[in-house]
């Protein structure tokens, strides 16, 4: 008969955190940053159809790194919550803060008690009428939430990307400058050149209700040139 060993909770949590971090570190990085007209998402992504960045609601976008199946189900759950709330109350009542709360709850609960923690990290970003009210929230694998003032970097080389971005960050940059800086920081950190980029924006200047726009390959090349 095998004897169960006592594992102190500190060790248990540390093991889980190490496990989640390792899973997240395997993937490429994603940057979410403010620019003059809103929030810009830039991800290194070899696939043109398996997105890391997507629309949650009219003014709210989502970005993720880590295991695809896990962040995909979190993404859909976010869309579902946003759409149900917007339909039963009003479109204006759907806020990033509510979604972030739900993500933090579910990721925290899974980290503490499920078989294994989520190996994902998320960003939920929201644009407002004025730049000062834009929000970028980063949610870690254990459910902790960070209110990022100007940009968020996630994935394997997050620290290196963040350090490089911090050196010349400008919240009033044009879209072209913002994408160039993000692409430069991602390329420098990963050491790989020419990885296809997935770029999307939440553009407050759009007259349409939905501010999320996924940029085409042509448009990305144009912004980078």
């Amino acid at each position, binding site marked *: 008969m095998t004897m169960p060993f006592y594992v102190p909770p500190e060790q248990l949590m540390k093991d889980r955190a190490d496990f989640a971090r390792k899973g997240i570190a395997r993937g490429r990085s994603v940057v979410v940053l403010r620019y003059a007209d809103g929030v810009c998402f830039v991800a290194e992504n070899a696939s043109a159809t398996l997105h890391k960045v*997507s629309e*949650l609601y009219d003014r709210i976008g989502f970005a993720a790194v880590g295991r695809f199946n896990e962040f995909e189900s*979190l993404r859909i759950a976010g869309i579902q919550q946003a759409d*149900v709330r917007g339909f*039963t109350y009003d479109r204006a009542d759907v806020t990033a803060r509510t979604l972030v709360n739900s993500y933090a*709850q579910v990721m925290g609960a899974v980290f503490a008690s499920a078989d294994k923690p989520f190996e994902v990290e998320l960003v939920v970003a929201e644009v407002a009428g004025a730049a000062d009210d834009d929000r970028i929230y980063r949610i870690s694998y254990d459910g902790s939430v960070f209110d990022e003032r100007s940009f968020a970097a996630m994935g394997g080389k997050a620290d290196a990307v963040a350090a490089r971005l911090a050196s010349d960050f400008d919240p009033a940059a044009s879209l072209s400058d913002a994408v160039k800086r993000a692409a430069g920081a991602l390329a420098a950190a990963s050491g790989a050149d020419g990885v296809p980029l997935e770029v999307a924006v939440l553009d407050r200047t759009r007259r349409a209700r939905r501010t999320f726009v996924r940029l085409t390959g042509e448009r990305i090349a144009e912004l980078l040139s």
Partner: protein
Amino acid sequence: MPGPGWDWAGRSSFADLLARTAPEALPRAVPSDVAPHGTTIVVATYAGGVAMAGDRRATWSSQIVQNDIEKVFIADDFSLVGVAGTAGVAVELVRLFQVELEHYEKVEGVALSFDGKANRLGGLIRANLEGAMRGLGVLPVYAGWDGARGRIVSYDVVGGHYSERDYYAVGSGAPFARGSLKKLHRPDLDAAGAATVLVQALVDAADDDSATAGPDAVRGLYPIVCTADSSGVRRWPDAEVEALASRVLEARRGRPDGPGAPLL
């Protein structure tokens, strides 16, 4: 939020999600004589697109209860939906349909095909409004750009849907509007021509149906006119519809019944 027993069978459909999580928010069938009615939507294709227009009147019994109601809506980037019938139910149905299309697009990453959208609208009616349809509670008409041409889809009282060829009308003034469309519509019309035909048809319907309003120059209330073509949907600004309606009414000073058609 997803857990181990995460049910994703109907995850692309907002209506299915709502039925599971907040069924009380779904539109319900009501007897058709208890609430205000909106009437008369007309649709016509033209070379390169499709146009839809609706008058602004809502009636209850023999009273006019609203003269600025909107019954023609933009469903998504390439399609339009108009609903005649019990106004409260119609508006809720359209709202549900709009979120249904957007929800699918966000979850799946691509928009539904035109026929997929038309089918889905029929499904929503069958699932939620079957009772109401029997008493002509709500009757939608769907139109849009399918990637190659303008299309019109009509619905019947059991949620079945049918592709219409050139023009269609729904609501209490529809028989009169359809007669007018029959004489005026030509397939080689442009967008402005199709809009003119639709406004003429609404004026003809208003002539003979008490529940349909003509253009109201005194209050500045004109039909809602929307078009869908390869570049997307557009709701015509009030000023453009006003100019169009004024020309139609001005021409009718000489001939109140509207333009005549050749005998042969």
